[in-house]
């Protein structure tokens, strides 16, 4: 059965207009670009950190000193500060954010919900330097004169709340990160709660559940993936946040047990020292910190995913 001669061109045109193969190929290339960018990023960090990796090896990860004069560089105080501030920030912002999202999506009158959502989206768009300035001029004095003395008085027996109240430090940085990640969690969690089909709620109510039972046992588990996604985004923002953190964390290059003490994060030290860094070793140590931050983000994301999958789920599997 020979095809008519003009059909070839027509076939090709057809392929372009509604062809599955073409769309498959084009979108594959687009998706592949994500992979390419990631690989190039790691490759650049890897080759530019060569002098530092050669000199310090893995001890870079747990060495405590950061001394540009003698050329001794270790990442531990920065890894510690980054993880500590991000974890405390999420401990504060996840319950608050998810709680607020449940109220806005399920319980609030629509007018209030819309108004709040508008404000939340405004908050998410505020540049981080503004949060940093606000923190520096309002949160830091408040911490120094009121909150930190109070914590020392009531919880001072814990090593977490000892030392002088400077106002700047891990706790202040964690608080500003909590405030910055909060709108992300609300906004995305609310969207995913609203996307739960009406039938799910109606079925739960029809079975005799109260409104709260239907929300907590049916709607929230159904929207689980979206909520987890919002937590990941918040974590990524907290780990990589630079300006606001460096303005309030105190920028001290040692690790301290007390949350009131000044510390440092990886992003903050890169931002602080990269422009004026001289010498290959100094520069490559800063690049290696970038590599460490990349690895840290991956590890923490994986851990968070495991944690959330382990604690939710039972009886609410959704495929």
């Amino acid at each position, binding site marked *: 059965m020979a095809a008519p001669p003009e059909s070839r061109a027509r076939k090709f045109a057809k392929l372009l207009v509604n062809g599955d193969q073409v769309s498959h190929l084009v979108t594959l290339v687009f998706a592949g670009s994500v992979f390419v960018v990631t690989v190039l990023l790691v490759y650049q960090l890897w080759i530019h950190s060569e002098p530092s990796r050669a000199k310090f090896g893995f001890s870079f990860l747990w060495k405590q000193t950061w001394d*540009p004069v*003698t050329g001794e560089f270790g990442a531990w105080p920065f890894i510690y500060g980054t993880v500590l501030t991000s974890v405390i920030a999420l401990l504060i912002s996840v319950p608050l954010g998810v709680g607020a999202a449940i109220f806005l999506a399920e319980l609030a009158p629509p007018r209030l919900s819309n108004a709040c959502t508008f404000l939340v989206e405004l908050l998410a768009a505020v540049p981080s330097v503004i949060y940093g300035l606000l923190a520096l001029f309002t949160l830091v004095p408040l911490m120094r004169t009121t909150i930190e003395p109070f914590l020392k008085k009531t919880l001072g027996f814990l090593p977490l709340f000892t030392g002088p109240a400077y106002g700047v430090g891990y706790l202040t940085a964690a608080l500003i990160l909590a405030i910055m990640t909060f709108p992300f969690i609300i906004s995305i969690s609310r969207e995913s709660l609203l996307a739960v089909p009406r039938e799910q709620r109606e079925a739960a109510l029809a079975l005799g559940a109260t409104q709260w039972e239907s929300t907590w046992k049916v709607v929230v588990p159904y929207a689980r993936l979206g909520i987890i996604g919002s937590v990941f985004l918040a974590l990524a923002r907290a780990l990589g946040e630079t300006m606001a953190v460096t303005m309030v964390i105190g920028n001290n290059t040692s690790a301290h047990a007390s949350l009131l003490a*000044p510390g*440092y994060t990886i992003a*903050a030290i890169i*931002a602080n020292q990269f*422009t004026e860094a*001289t010498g290959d070793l100094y520069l490559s140590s800063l690049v290696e910190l970038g590599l460490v931050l990349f690895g840290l983000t991956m590890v923490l994301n994986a851990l968070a995913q495991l944690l959330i999958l382990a604690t939710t789920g039972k009886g609410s599997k959704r495929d």
Partner: protein
Amino acid sequence: MKKQIVWTALLAMSAASALTAAETINAAGATFPAPIYQKWFEEYRKAHPDVQINYQSIGSGGGIRQLTEGTVDFGASDMPMTDQQIKDVVAKRHFKPLHFPTVLGGVVPAYSVSGVNTELKFSGETLAGIFMGKIAKWNDAAIKKDNPGVNLPNEDITVAHRSDASGTSFVFTDYLSKVSPEWKSKVGANTAVNWPVGLGGKGNEGVAGLVKQTPNSIGYMDLIYAVQNKIAYGSVKNASGSFVKADLNTVTEAAAGAAKSMPEDFRVSITNAPGKNAYPISTFTWLLIPDKIDNPAKKKAISEFLKWMMGPGQADAQGLSFAPLPMAVVSKEEKQVSLIK
């Protein structure tokens, strides 16, 4: 990758400069003198419309790096280049960078101490003790000795320093290294050091903010920031034993004191300089000019700019709170211009 981008940018730039007949010169480096450099380059362009100098204030380290990579025509730094850095430039670019001092700056110990309204005095050893954490209270015997009769409170000292690497930190730690052997062996002098105690603030404005906000604190900053932010700053004991407060005259005095022993390449630290009225924490800031410029038009433009900067340009310095060069240094520098081949 990076090289390609740089080349593309260079090609684009040279294409642009070929189109507009003006000679475009690119420079990058120190942030501390950036205000006066911007003003100079702007004024020079008005007087000579055929020369346009673009200056990016990316930091002294960045300026030296870009000069070494050959992405700028000249650099600028608050810290003289080390022998190793000069060797690197010679090996990679086949020219030697010449140091041209442009203006002077002073770094002051600024403080806020509750209940103290008189101006405090600091000797070098006391400052080193405070920034090492060995002097931890305001009523320490060492501070009392420098300030007889001042009623100092029994409060902890909060130390504030720069968190970013900076020429300001270099000048301050260079001074402390000269007056305190212990500081020299334990901390040393650099644009960034391993600070034994204290809070880090980003930039002069960050340290100024910390000192202003935190009761009983002390930090160091460029003179102009202490003046602009109305933060109290103390006088510092100089090499001849008198307490001198920083201002444009005492800073210039320090350079004049050092001019006699100035090395031929101008790579000199003028901290703790001799002279009765010399302010001890003063510094030059330098332009780093190649001693071999292949493009004759560029060579002419840069040489003429340097001469202009040392002459009429100096008049702009005081308005922006930079101390002008002493005459003795200018006459030495003018000779160095002829070394540009």
